[in-house]
């Protein structure tokens, strides 16, 4: 059976991709951020996941306002990146895992989340930048992935608690997947940032650190936030916290933080990286 071995949450700021393209990983501005990934690479090397489920938000590459799904799941054999309009180099395609995609689609729909399914899907920086950070060789050298998107553009957005339950449904779907494989969850986005309005540049370190604490042992506190509270405390684009909340919902066994790093600013954003170990509930019980 498939097993969720843990999760990695990271900011996905486009300028990280720009810094990678320019080879600025050791530049003084960027070094503290990129250095945070050394222990993450060690964790990946130790735990060797087979497939990733990547929960993120599209920023106007695959989806436009003509058709805007609240929750969408990629069901393709591969996923292409493309020009987003501001000069990031286009990355080679990423490999999918359509069997796992359909497992998630079938089992999540059975739990009353009415998904949009995508047999073709372009993945934007919010998918690509974290994949580059985790598997720097990229393309076919990254592990197969299933993209899952949450609408963060067009209000009304799904409530935080709905995202938490969506994640729980994904977790159950993965853990009932008959293939013997190790699954890592990725959540991308956040933490606090605001790009628009006269409050642009808003960052809330205190709230970000509170989120990074609560997400380990008290995720319900995050699920209880209203969209308005998230925008007030994390900025209008801080709503990407929804992806972190869904990721945490998918881990319903014992969760512990293996690594955590907060770094301000990454461009306009409170930059955060966290790694979680997960021991599935049945195994946690068996070990007691």
């Amino acid at each position, binding site marked *: 059976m498939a097993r969720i071995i843990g999760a990695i949450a990271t900011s996905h700021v486009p300028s990280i991709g720009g810094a990678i393209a320019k080879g600025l990983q050791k530049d003084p501005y960027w070094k503290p951020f990129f250095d945070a990934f050394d222990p993450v690479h060690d964790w990946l090397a130790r735990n060797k996941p087979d497939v990733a489920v990547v929960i993120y938000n599209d920023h106007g590459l695959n989806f*436009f306002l003509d058709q805007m799904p609240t929750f969408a799941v990629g069901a393709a054999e591969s996923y292409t990146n493309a020009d987003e309009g501001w*000069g990031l180099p286009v990355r080679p395609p990423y490999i999918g895992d359509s069997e796992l995609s359909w497992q998630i689609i079938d089992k999540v729909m059975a739990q009353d989340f009415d998904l949009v399914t995508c047999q073709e899907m372009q993945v934007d920086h919010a998918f690509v930048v974290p994949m580059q950070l985790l598997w720097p060789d990229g393309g076919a050298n990254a592990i197969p992935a299933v993209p899952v998107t949450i609408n963060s*553009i067009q209000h009304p957005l799904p409530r935080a608690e709905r995202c938490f339950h969506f994640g729980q449904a994904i977790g159950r779907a993965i853990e009932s997947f008959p293939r013997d494989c190790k699954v890592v969850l990725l959540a991308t986005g956040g933490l606090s940032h605001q*790009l*628009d309005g*006269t409050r642009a*540049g808003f960052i809330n*370190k205190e709230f970000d650190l509170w989120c990074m604490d609560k997400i380990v042992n008290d995720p319900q506190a995050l699920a209880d936030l209203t969209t308005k509270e998230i925008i007030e405390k994390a900025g*209008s684009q801080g709503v990407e916290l929804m992806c972190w909340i869904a990721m945490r919902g998918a881990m319903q066994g014992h969760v512990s933080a293996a690594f955590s790093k907060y770094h301000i600013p990454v461009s306009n954003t*409170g930059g955060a990286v966290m790694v979680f170990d997960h021991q599935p509930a049945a195994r946690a019980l068996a070990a007691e």
Partner: protein
Amino acid sequence: MDDQFNIPGTPVFDGVQARKGYALNKMCYSFNDDANRKAFLSNEEGYMRKYGLNEAQKEAIRHRNVLELIAAGGNIYYLAKFAGIFGLGVQDVGAQQTGMSLQAFKEMLTAHGH
């Protein structure tokens, strides 16, 4: 720019904004494609007409003014693609909206860490 959340300085892209800004956002979304970016630059007025922008949206585009673009229904994620045509990033966009120099805006961001 009143909206349901009414958080100072913080536009929320709700149904009212989405309806108001559809043509503008659709034009900006087209700037994912390099050929469209070039077509815009070679004939801005014609390109705006093709997408059916209203006068307020055209004026905001002519002014390269982000707050005006948002007031005209623009969403920041699509507007970022418009800014990208001129090589401007989110920090330039933030500096313009807050009336700060780019340097001052960057310093303000860095100061959040302390």
